């Protein structure tokens, strides 16, 4: 297990570096002089501009700047925002908990309903349940998240008044979590369903049934573990999509978070913040995939034994 972890980490680090290199490179081609953006239109003499240029490190060659970039990230220094003049790391850290809450809420909702629906329809394929669940899944995948979010607000807050809009409390997290989680439900349910169908069709399951084991035990003990592997690997990608979906949800529900910060910064051409968020998201994604890999390793002996 440990060696697998180490190997995975070793694989992840170059990926991380390459992605940061790409991000860094992308931001170099963005038109607009960073010095101008930093000054924000306040008149400044050429001397002040030259000083700023040196302070930002813009007069150094590209590879050297990349090295500084990576070094700064590892030290937790993500630069200074052009818009607010505050350290970006602080801004991101301040907004992160809200987004994490939202993503967690969406994950919980998505897992419960995604797994639930997938199991229900997978265990009884082509039955009535399957049809209903498939319809729900189709709807969930087709609905624009900004529409579902707004409709939810309208129905439950404006018309019925059941759920508060304002506040950081748990109650205020319900609707946003549903909005973010809907897409996960759709993707997960579909995959769980096909995975369950495939697993239940395997020989060993039929053997277990033939042995006369209780159907529930068959499902839980024998089939479930193996059926879960493809969905778990998908989960990693789904989380990335959810972080993107959180952007819209934060906008609609007027919640603070990384998404709101990203959009604000994009519109304001506040590149250090945009860069920092992308850097963090990539790192988070790689980390999550790492965890997912480990989870798959723990569950699936085939991974442990290596490719045949």
């Amino acid at each position: 297990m440990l060696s697998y972890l180490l190997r995975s980490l070793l694989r992840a680090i170059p990926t991380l570096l390459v992605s940061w290199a790409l991000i860094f490179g992308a931001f170099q081609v963005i038109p607009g002089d960073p010095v101008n953006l930093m000054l924000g239109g306040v008149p400044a003499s050429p001397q002040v501009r030259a000083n700023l240029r040196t302070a930002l490190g813009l007069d150094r060659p590209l590879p050297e700047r990349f090295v500084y970039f990576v070094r700064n990230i590892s030290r937790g220094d993500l630069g200074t925002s052009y818009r607010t003049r505050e350290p970006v790391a602080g801004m991101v850290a301040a907004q992160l908990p809200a987004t994490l809450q939202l993503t967690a809420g969406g994950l919980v909702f998505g897992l419960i309903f995604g797994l639930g629906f997938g199991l229900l329809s997978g265990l009884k394929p082509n039955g009535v349940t399957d049809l209903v669940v498939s319809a729900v899944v189709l709807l969930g995948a087709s609905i624009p998240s900004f529409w579902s979010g707004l409709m939810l607000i309208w129905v439950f807050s404006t018309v019925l008044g059941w759920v508060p809009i304002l506040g950081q409390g748990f109650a205020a997290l319900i609707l946003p979590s549903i909005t973010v989680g809907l897409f996960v439900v759709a993707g997960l349910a579909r995959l769980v369903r096909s995975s369950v169908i495939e697993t239940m069709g395997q020989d060993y399951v039929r053997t277990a049934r033939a042995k006369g084991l209780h159907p529930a035990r068959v499902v839980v003990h024998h089939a479930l573990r193996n059926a879960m592997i493809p969905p778990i690997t998908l989960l990693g990608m789904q989380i990335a999509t959810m972080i993107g979906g959180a952007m819209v949800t934060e906008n609609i529900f007027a919640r603070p978070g990384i998404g709101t910060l990203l959009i604000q910064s994009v519109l304001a051409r506040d590149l250090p913040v945009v860069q920092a968020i992308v850097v963090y998201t990539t790192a988070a994604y790689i980390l999550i995939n790492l965890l997912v890999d480990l989870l798959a390793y723990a569950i699936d002996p085939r991974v442990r034994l290596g490719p045949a």
Partner: protein
Amino acid sequence: MISRRQSLLWGAAALATSAAPVRRAHAAQGALTVRYGSAASDDHTYDPRITMMGTEEQIIVQVFDRLVAIDAANQVRPYLAKSWVVAEDFRSVSLQLREDVTFHDGTAFDAAAVKFTFDSIVDPATGSLGAIDVIGPYAGSDVLGSHTIRLRYRAPFPRMLSALADNKASIVSPTAARALGVTAFGHAPVGTGPFRFVSWTQGVEVVLERNPAYHWAPEFLPQQPPQAERVVHRFIPNTATRVAALDAGEIDICEQAPPLDVRRMTATPQYHSLIGNSLGVPYGFSLNTSRGRFADLAVRRAFMQSINRPWISDNLFFGIVKPAWGPLAASAPEYWSGVREYYPFDLAAAARLLAEAGWQPGADGIRQKDGQRLALFLPILLEPRIGVVLQADARKAGFDLKIEQVTHERQEELIFANDYDLLSLHWGLNDASVLEVPFLSTNVPAPGQFTFNWSRYRSAALDRLLRDAAASSGAQRLSGYAEIQKEIMDQALFLPIHEVAYNVVYSHHVAGLRLAHGNSQTLLAAATAAT
């Protein structure tokens, strides 16, 4: 302090109204906490010497006082200064200060504090961009006695007293300002005002508490210390959320609610509102005279006549906001009523003007001349909805108006590149000299200089009128500004759309709110719990 009887009544009222699903987060024991919902997402500083944002003045006006105050009749009245003598040449003023005033940190208010405040404003190390403009050609001050001070000016400054009433000329505590430095002082301001600063959680809220020693308000305002124990100033930038917060009872005062919500809420006895037209330049558009189709005066005039301004007020603002007809707010004393006659909505007149200028109707409804289309570009930053109306209205007259919703940064790019035909503009200032901002020749943007003469109209005559009017007073001032407004309208430099309204909707549980001079802030010092 709230009496027992009042707190019993208050408790009874709370019980009675708690049948509705409303949560009240007032402090216990019936003490009044006023919760104000601000439209800003956060502020940068509460140091009046460097503040640049109107939303920051909402706090500044509670924490600080000024030397003089302006009442509802636009008269200058004593405040921290008991009396004054203005020199004949308008180059200095001697003020006699109150002797019973102290800052929140215990420092005595005296002439040295006033001198410190103004000297630090003009000190480049402070980095003032707003206050330094407001206090005019301030040259220095002489402390003539512990509570007597003379302010000196480099050039005649007839409106010096109204300048001293501006929020940016508030008096700061020298002890605190020196000890903390400008940045930290902005995060922990110390003044003499009715409320003292307690805390600021960035992006969330600012808390103030009453100053029990306060008894030096201007005579036309209540003289006792505030009844409110605390003020909680919450940042709720999302409009719907802010209104919802008021609905749910989580705040008592909601700033800048949308017109429909104002109308809905004030139709019930549970909410009241205060609406004021802010002083300054109303919301409108600068027409770029230096290039494109608008270089022709006739085209500018035709454009202005094709816009239906009353329709905008009625349909987008439901009558809560009034149309504007000139470059100066209607509530300003120097407002010239003659602007009302200019450019009424008249498509036929617009068509005539355009035809005379050689613009003939084209195949797709857009006018053409010498193979060129009557095309205009509006990068719009403020109130993009108005842009949609402009687009639709102008089309009927044969203009092809292209719109792009932009951010500050993008607008700046376009300004420096002179790549626009119209720009949205509004400027809040409690003095008619605000007209210099968009119309003085030296304020045309140039590389490295971000200024606001976006119509790029250069006229030595207009410059002279502006400077003379700013330096004058009385009847001369009124006629001077009337001429200026006439010239601006004659040249069709600015398309006024609507007066800028500041509104607060507040719960009927709170009373005693009033708008500060200039109608852009709410004074909370006299707030009481209404029974």
